[in-house]
């Protein structure tokens, strides 16, 4: 074979080898961030409208009459579970007596609490080690949780839905 062809084959092989490595990494990436229950439901049932549970404000202004009735886990080991918001509060943590038990190395025993006050659900962080995040922001004093807004506890993300 000519020098040039050999060079191309040589380089080509290294490129392919790395493409293989990165295709494996991309699968792992999809495992971590992609393929969430929201999109599965959306694929199965409704189109676009529902597949983007994005920033709360726009959604709530569009549908002000809706009240949160359930908590839906969107990311994490338990993605897809829902819990009805029946009482006046809902505790989250690793402890066995929590309403939502988060079996997660990054969650505290009594991690956070959802409290229903004046028609709003508030999230309160119970001095957890790794914090609670509402729409990416760390929860200090209790904050109002709007509908379809991501709340993250450890590696679990959930949101409130009608």
């Amino acid at each position: 074979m000519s020098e040039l062809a050999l060079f191309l084959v040589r380089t080509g092989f290294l490129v392919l080898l790395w493409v293989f490595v990165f295709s494996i990494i991309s699968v792992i990436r999809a495992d971590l961030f992609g393929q969430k229950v929201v999109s599965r439901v959306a694929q199965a049932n409704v189109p676009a409208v529902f597949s983007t549970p994005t920033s709360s404000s726009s959604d709530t202004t569009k549908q002000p009459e809706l009240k949160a009735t359930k908590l839906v886990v969107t990311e994490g080991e338990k993605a897809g579970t829902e819990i009805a918001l029946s009482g006046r509060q809902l505790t989250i943590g690793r402890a066995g007596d929590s309403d939502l038990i988060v079996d997660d190395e990054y969650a505290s025993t009594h991690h956070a609490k959802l409290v229903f006050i004046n028609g709003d659900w508030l999230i309160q962080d119970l001095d957890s080690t790794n914090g609670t995040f509402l729409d990416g922001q760390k929860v200090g004093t209790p904050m109002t949780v709007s509908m379809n807004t991501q709340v993250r506890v450890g590696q679990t993300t959930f949101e409130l839905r009608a």
Partner: protein
Amino acid sequence: MNALTEALQISKPIKVVPRSRNLEALLLFFAAGLNAFELAQIQLSILERMTTDLFTYWLPPVLFAFLLHLILRRRASEADPLILPIALVLNGLGIAMIYRLDLATIASGGAELFAFRQVMWTALAMAIAAIVILYIPSQLFLRRYVYTAMAVGIVLLLLPLLPVIGTTINGATLWISLFGVTFQPGEIAKIALIIFFSGYLVDRKDSLAVVGRKILGIRIPRGRELGPILVIWLASIGVLVLQRDLGTSILYFGLFLVMIYVATGRAFYAGIGVAMLITGGLVASRLLDYVSRRFDAWLNPFEQANYDAVGGSYQIVQGIFGMANGGLFGSGLGGGVPQLVPLAESDFIISSLAEELGLIGFFAILALYFLLVSRGLKVAFRHSDEFAKLMAVGFSFVIALQLFVVIGGVTRILPLTGLTTPFLAAGGSSLLANWIIIAMLLRLSDSAVDRQTEVITR
């Protein structure tokens, strides 16, 4: 609005048909393509034409990989989709490099060929992996045989010391020879010991972790809890003295330390273990001639006396020259001269590959190993059963540790030892052991995803 509420009602945990198996099939095609590419490139650059030999070295592993894939579809459909393709690529790379070294041997008139044997062993190893997946339905089955595993492990370790079948190669008594086939029972012992360590530590981890007095803020376990560590330590020293193999002895002891640390979460065990390892190593380097020569060859490889000595640093230095010759991009498969290094097809296969694929290719290989190990650890992380968790840690870590010791030896980070590079190096026992490990990881990963139902709601 109606559609909306309907959608929400359905959004209960849905059992989605695992897309992982299709992904695995796709990656297996990619892996098979890579393997064919390697062999073709080698034939074109050395023979300057392609021959049907290519299929001899390409087809068996690929066919068996797809057979394993079909078995997984039926029997372990939730198994990790990445483990099998990674193992196939690594195994294929090993076969290709060994074939390439065989071609060099043929060109120089030699007769000691390894590639065909390697392919046959690969096929056998993969067939046994298939049997493991088929006949070990879950880790609970193994739980019953924890102490049997211990006995099997010890017997396998001691086999090479038996008079008739025991065989000494290059100074180490690690092989048995039956009907002209040499075999390294220690490789299989590794698996038996991981099963035993897991079972033992699951039963004992609480007493190992909690009981004991506090001295200077460090909790010291009771004397009798240290018993097993001493036994394993003595066994490792025994391997070092009687079988004269540094690598194997480090492997067993390191494996046990990692597992006890993972089981108990106590740094004390890791600390005392490393101290024992270093003490043992230093004493051995004083008292055992072959260890002290290894140390000297490691620290001063470029000294003329070491370079010329029999069993000196010639091999390490040739390996380093080879890798330097490869540089960043490598000489291309078939373009370098890896055959100049003694044992280029087994102990030094990593330097052969680094020479021909360069630093870039070498890092790709390392990345594949790391991904393999990380998938194994992920199984451990996600599995709900502690016995399975510990086994998965053991199986992943044994690959990582072996890699560290071998590559560390070749690149002069550690003294050179005689461990095999998983999947790459020529040698049937190592292939067999590593494919069984892959089968076990696949089996464990299948049951590691069953946690969605665990949420308790009130």
